[in-house]
């Protein structure tokens, strides 16, 4: 079983996240870059399968700037067997169409039985890349899984919808995305950090993947940002310390504001 986990580098959500007003792109110098928490959970799904199936192979794959190296090394330290980094300056400002095309090409190059992604990134938050990748690869997607069971030839699980849950399965090869209902990821151990340095780490350019943007993306609709405006920060209002009457004072405040 070869499992490829898609990991995206994002600005740390604990810091202030900044959009560059000129380009509408995430200002990646403004905050620490980390592997998206949801992608660490996706990796955990793969690694816990590998815990029980020693012959499984786990690859971490990312498309992104040079800073991604740190995140992929962390993935190796947690227990992935190898890493693939698609790095190319032509990919700056890639939309979901470009991103999914590039990831699909990289997955064709690495080969896979199962691809595991996060349901939504915490920066773009599109929640569409995994399904787009699956469509391009011609394999079934199952997105937003809240539980996952992997067998030799099938992946199954439960997925939340607006009205309830669906139990679904798909034959392998397949692409799945998982939600934060799945467990938090393990921490890298010292031994893992040491052995990570010796694990295969491949860097691929668009040329290596046979992609020439001028040809591959000719006639393809592209999402572009026209304008970015920052909203004024919210100011704080009145703050009182409860001295036995705060509930009544709050009710008065709500009445005065016509909120009840």
């Amino acid at each position, binding site marked *: 079983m070869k499992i490829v986990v898609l990991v995206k580098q994002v600005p740390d*959500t604990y*810091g*202030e*996240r900044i*959009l560059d007003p000129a380009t*509408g792109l995430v200002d990646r110098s403004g905050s620490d870059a980390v592997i998206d928490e*949801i992608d660490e959970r996706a990796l955990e799904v793969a690694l816990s399968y590998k815990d029980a199936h020693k012959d499984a192979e786990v690859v971490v794959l990312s498309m992104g700037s040079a800073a991604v190296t740190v995140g992929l090394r962390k993935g190796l330290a947690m227990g992935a067997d190898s890493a693939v980094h698609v790095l190319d300056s032509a990919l700056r400002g890639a939309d*979901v*169409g470009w991103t*999914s095309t590039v990831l699909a090409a990289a997955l064709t190059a690495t080969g896979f039985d199962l691809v595991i992604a996060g349901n939504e990134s915490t920066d*773009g938050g*599109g929640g*569409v*890349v995994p*399904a*787009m*990748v*699956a*469509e391009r690869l011609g394999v*079934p997607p*199952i*997105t937003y899984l809240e539980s996952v069971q992997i067998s030799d030839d099938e992946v*199954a699980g*439960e*997925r*939340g919808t*607006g009205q309830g849950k*669906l*139990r*679904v*399965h*798909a034959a392998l090869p*397949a692409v799945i995305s998982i939600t934060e*209902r799945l467990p938090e990821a393990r921490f890298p151990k010292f031994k893992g950090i040491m052995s990570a340095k010796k694990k295969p780490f491949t860097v691929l350019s668009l040329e290596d993947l046979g992609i020439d943007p001028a040809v591959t993306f000719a*006639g*393809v*609709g*592209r*999402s*572009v*940002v*026209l304008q*970015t*405006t*920052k909203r004024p920060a*919210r100011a*704080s*209002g*009145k*703050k*009182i*310390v*409860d001295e036995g009457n*705060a*509930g*009544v004072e*709050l*009710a008065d405040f709500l*009445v005065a504001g016509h909120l*009840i």
Partner: protein
Amino acid sequence: MSNILALIEVSHHGDLADSTPSLLAAAAKLGTPVAVVVTVPGAGSALVEKLGQLGAAQVYLAQSEQVGTFLVTPQVDALALAMSTFNPGAILTVNSVEGRDVAARLAARIDAGLVIDAVDLRSEGPSIVATHSVFGGAYTVESTVQGGRAIVTVRQGAIEGQADAAVPVVTTVSLESDTGRSAVIDEVIDNVVVSARPPLRGASTVVSGGRGLGSQEKFALVERLADALGAAVGASRAAVDAGFVSQASQVGQTGVTVSPQLYVALGISGAIQHRAGMQTAKTIVAINKDADAPIFDIADFGIVGDVFTVVPQLIEAIESRSKK
């Protein structure tokens, strides 16, 4: 005016999703709304009249025995088929789990540009300009699609107003999808809790509880205040993780984004990821024991105090007022 396809969501009981009026209103802002409805054979015609009242000038009923058995694929194929009939200026889906899946797969299939989570839409000449509310409303971004067709996922309920009612022209087609590329639905598990409270998304008042509530039993206090205010119940991720309340109630970065008239945060510290889901509320009220909790930085009315003494008093004050 160009045709605008709108993929209507239908529950597995055959009802129109709550997002339908807003989606058709969005389509009407851009052109002539064409409602695309994908059901098992025979189930769609009951929806036509209602779709007309909501503004659909045309209804495209795609029927497939595979609906409910094969995940998402019949909907993708139906839209692809409708495209060849209507040559639409844009294709809209709801920004739900299913709507995004359909939009994603169709965009990849037809090389369209994808505009995600639009909160407003307008035409500018031949292009479509979408407004997005990004990072919990910290930024407003406008985007468009260049060089190809546009598929847009529209945030549930974000676009208000209603399209003019019409008597729709109905087209019925049958389709059968290639199942090799599809996941299979084994079972549908309905939401067991049918709540009398308003749904979280779109509610005008939300009362949320955090880890500070301490237990599932004590979380009932949040529900009591919600009922006194006619509000929806929300929660922090910590409260969801602790099992006080179901995941559907989570507000924040990775939960639901709400923008109510009144948001009441009980025992919630106000982590940046929580604020990302509620900071555009008109009025924010916070009750927290810790005077330094970051939730107070954005609260219009903050109370440093214990929720277990302040909230019962508040409920009593509200109830005695309504008795007057």
